[in-house]
């Protein structure tokens, strides 16, 4: 399997980048919410507008690289026979991660514009960013639960 020999170090890296993704998307959500409430901080919003999607893209790529090993060594060998709930839990985490990617990229792209958006636009960006951050948090917690049950 591809990357099987380095699956463990990649899993550790996946966790570290995961923390970066969780906290950067949370920062972006917080700053976009403050912006919607009238407390402008465009500089911070622009800064996290590239950190959050970058961290999330790297995190998703690491997850995609680890997925074949998980699929054979964990899911097919263990979860499908002994813990079918964890199979579904992991799938749910993957779906949340995919959806969060679209939400965070859209929010970050819209928030990086230098001109000051309207109040309605700022609330829209905040809604996208907060939903994205919520999904990233949930995916991270579910990922830790699955890894605690059976790491690659």
């Amino acid at each position, binding site marked *: 399997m591809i990357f099987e020999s380095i699956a463990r170090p990649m899993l550790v890296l996946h966790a570290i980048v995961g923390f970066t993704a969780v906290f950067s998307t949370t920062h972006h959500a917080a700053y976009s919410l403050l912006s919607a409430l009238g407390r402008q901080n465009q500089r911070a919003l622009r800064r996290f507008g590239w950190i959050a999607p970058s961290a999330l893209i790297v995190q998703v790529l690491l997850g995609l690289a680890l997925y074949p090993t998980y699929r054979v060594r964990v899911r097919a060998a263990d979860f499908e026979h002994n813990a079918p709930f964890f199979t579904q*839990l992991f*799938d749910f985490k993957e779906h949340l991660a995919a959806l969060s990617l*679209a939400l965070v990229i859209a929010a970050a792209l819209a928030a990086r514009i230098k001109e000051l958006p309207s109040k309605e636009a700022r609330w829209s*960006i905040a809604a996208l960013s907060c939903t994205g951050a919520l999904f990233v948090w949930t995916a991270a917690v579910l990922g830790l639960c699955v890894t605690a049950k059976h790491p690659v």
Partner: protein
Amino acid sequence: MSERLLRAGLFAVAAFAIGYLLPGTQQLPVFFYHPVRRVIAFTGAAPSPWMRYYGDLFYAACVALLAFGIALKLPPRKTPLAIATGTALSLVALDVLFYLSRLLASV
């Protein structure tokens, strides 16, 4: 320009949500990957350990990029941003509810 980019982003998010949910539920043909044999197939369904996640994600990303490009090319819409945002997030919520129902069904 900012609002136009935001509207295009919302359109892309809505397209991503639809493009991510439909192939799996309707068994539409996507790319499948076999992790042991390291081969790719283009089909609607395949037994484990064939993986359709890459294919679904690729499909959704292509649909979202296409929607983003189209939205940028089209003349600006008058739909209130709140409605556009609500629609995009409702489609995302629909995806989450569907996958949550599958998770809860396995309990």
